[in-house]
């Protein structure tokens, strides 16, 4: 072959070396996804073969030379029923299986470690609670549930890791979440799959899954020296939030200590859970989030705080129920129940647990809209 066409030869070599039918199975969910995929492939194959056999077989058996006289057949209710009900049944199986998989992927476990993702044209910014900032890269430990709380600064993006079989739209003005549990160390593709403008295809990055030790080393090595909460604290002070949210009796604003994850009563009587989306919403649209018992005097910070700043504030307020930020020392960047518990931040642990339950993208809307409809208006 390579005698007469080296190009073609190289092409074949390329083919044989790089040809793949499946991306690596690098997350806990991947095998389940692939199993479902094979099931669907099987159904398709059966259907295709069936139709193919009918068409080919009849074409041969009843071609004109063989069968010059067509026989009139009106139809058959029995057959119609058969090929209505059997496909319907199969599709129903697909529906149920798919739905189960869907909820498995979009319901994070209660104690996942949380990393913030900010998408903008055309880069991914990852913010670790310990203050590690990354661009177009995300370092994560294997064998640990990781939840991403994502938001877009401008247009729709979509955070896709084929090797983990997860993908989630990153929406402007609203947190969305996805979670995964990496199983194999390695470097995997990160794509933006939602068309987002000129350099859409350059909005890619790499997911680096590392063994827990390497990950710890990395966190120590690449910290910016300020945890998100510490940034948040400075922002909190500079914006003068304290003047109202002083936590003292008779303060003009509600006390924010321990508010995260608790049920708050809004003006108008609805009670909602104060999750990330709610905190973010109350900073940008205080009126739609006004809590009962407080005059709606808070100004909006729309346009004054960047998404990163909002994340810092949210992270700070989350931490507020423990006065110590022992769990945010430089060498321990991320929370896990064990560590949080070990540092005695039990209430904090409670709020950790709630992140799982409350950070669902579709749980947010009711926290932030009048009439309990729709997502949080910016």
């Amino acid at each position, binding site marked *: 072959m390579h005698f007469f066409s080296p190009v073609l030869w190289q092409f074949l070599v390329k083919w044989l070396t790089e040809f793949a039918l499946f991306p690596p199975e690098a997350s806990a969910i991947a095998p389940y996804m692939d199993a479902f995929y094979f099931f669907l492939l099987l159904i398709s194959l059966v259907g295709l073969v069936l139709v193919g056999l009918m068409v080919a077989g009849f074409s041969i058996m009843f071609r004109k030379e063989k069968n010059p006289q067509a026989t009139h057949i009106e139809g058959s209710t029995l057959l119609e029923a058969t090929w209505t009900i059997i496909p319907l049944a199969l599709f129903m199986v697909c529906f149920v299986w798919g739905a189960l998989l869907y*909820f498995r992927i979009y*319901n994070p476990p209660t104690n996942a470690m949380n990393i913030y993702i900010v998408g903008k044209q055309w880069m991914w910014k990852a913010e670790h609670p310990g203050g590690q900032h990354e661009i177009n890269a995300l370092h994560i430990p294997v064998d640990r549930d990781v939840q991403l709380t994502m938001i877009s600064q401008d247009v729709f993006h979509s955070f896709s890791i084929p090797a983990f079989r997860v993908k989630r739209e990153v929406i402007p003005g609203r947190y969305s979440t996805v979670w995964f549990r990496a199983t194999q160390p390695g470097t995997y593709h990160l794509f933006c799959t939602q068309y987002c403008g000129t350099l859409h295809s350059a909005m890619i990055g790499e997911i680096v899954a590392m063994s827990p030790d390497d990950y710890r080393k990395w966190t120590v090595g690449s910290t910016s020296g300020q945890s998100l909460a510490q940034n948040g604290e400075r922002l909190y002070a500079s914006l003068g939030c304290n003047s109202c949210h002083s936590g003292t009796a008779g303060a003009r604003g509600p006390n924010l200590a321990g508010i995260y994850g608790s049920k708050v009563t809004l003006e108008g009587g609805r009670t909602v859970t104060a999750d990330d989306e709610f905190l973010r919403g109350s900073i940008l649209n205080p009126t739609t989030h006004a809590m009962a018992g407080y005059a709606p005097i808070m100004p909006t910070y729309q346009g004054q705080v960047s998404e990163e700043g909002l994340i810092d504030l949210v992270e700070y307020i989350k931490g507020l129920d423990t006065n110590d930020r022992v769990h945010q020392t430089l060498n321990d960047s991320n929370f896990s129940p064990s560590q949080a518990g070990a540092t005695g931040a039990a209430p904090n642990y409670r709020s950790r647990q709630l992140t799982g339950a409350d950070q*669902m993208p*579709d*749980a*947010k*809307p*009711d926290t932030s*809209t009048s009439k*309990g*409809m*729709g*997502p949080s208006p910016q």
Partner: protein
Amino acid sequence: MSHPTLEDAHAEPHIVGPKTYGLILLALLCLTALTTGIAYINLGVFSPIVAIGIAVIKMTLVILFFMHVKYSSRLVMLTVAAGFFTFLVLITMTLSDYISRAWGLW
């Protein structure tokens, strides 16, 4: 849709007289006044419902008499029905998404 009677259903053109039109006009004007007045009374959640209800009544009157649907073929009635059906599909299916977002997960 497969009923031939749909085609044949039309009677000879039924002419609606000025008296009917006058009555309908009167009813419509009264309803307008009514709905404006009710807007000043606080009925809580029922305010919009009542307002829309009255609007629907007015619409029905216009469609049935001014637009002669009351005397038209079943095909025309079916057409009107189809229009409102699709309209409702658009509204309800979309709102169902926004409303159920508030429910969170199970």
